[in-house]
């Protein structure tokens, strides 16, 4: 069965520090992978997506992610976080040949001053 695992429920980093949020997926087909961010009382906003090509994809607000087929991973990174990055981040897998989407459990990021 397909799955997305975000092993860290909560991550706390200091403002200005670098960030990595982990995501592992399980899927035998070609994965389409996304990172979304959810701010309080908001919907999900797309940060970036990967479906082919360069395994490092750039997103909005300085975020990037690296796809690794060998590790079945799609980790999100940012070189220097800002307090406004505090939110919940979701890794999402879209399956080929249909409209099924699998959500990770989310990682709550807190950026401390």
């Amino acid at each position, binding site marked *: 069965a397909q799955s997305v695992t975000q092993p860290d429920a909560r991550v706390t980093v200091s403002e200005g520090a670098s960030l990595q949020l982990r995501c592992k997926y399980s899927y035998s087909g070609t994965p389409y992978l996304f990172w979304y961010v959810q701010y309080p*009382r*908001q919907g*999900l906003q797309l940060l970036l*997506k990967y479906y082919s090509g360069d395994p490092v994809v750039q997103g909005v607000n300085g975020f990037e992610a690296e796809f690794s087929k060998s590790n079945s991973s799609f980790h999100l990174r940012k070189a220097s976080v800002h307090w406004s990055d505090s939110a*919940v981040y979701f890794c999402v897998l879209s399956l080929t040949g249909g409209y099924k989407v699998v959500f990770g*459990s989310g990682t709550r990021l807190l950026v401390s001053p």
Partner: protein
Amino acid sequence: NSKVIQTPRYLVKGQGQKAKMRCIPEKGHPVVFWYQQNKNNEFKFLINFQNQEVLQQIDMTEKRFSAECPSNSPCSLEIQSSEAGDSALYLCASSLGTGENTLYFGAGTRLSVL
């Protein structure tokens, strides 16, 4: 920023009451999805449409939930008889329905059933 518009943002209902929420998908997106997000950040797929036709829906949706996406009108999701367990954030998303199926979400309707 997403151009999916959901109304109302907040909905408060008593148990047994009807709850109706609406969604205007992004222009040009023929596929619309409804998800329920609970307080534990678990997402439950409810139903999706391609243009006005239902593609997939879960059993829960078939019983107390109804949804439609009429042409030239907002899509809607209605709960006929609300239960406390329906309290959640209801998210509408739309997509082009091609290739990687990127979903664009609205801000959601937060339903509280008292």
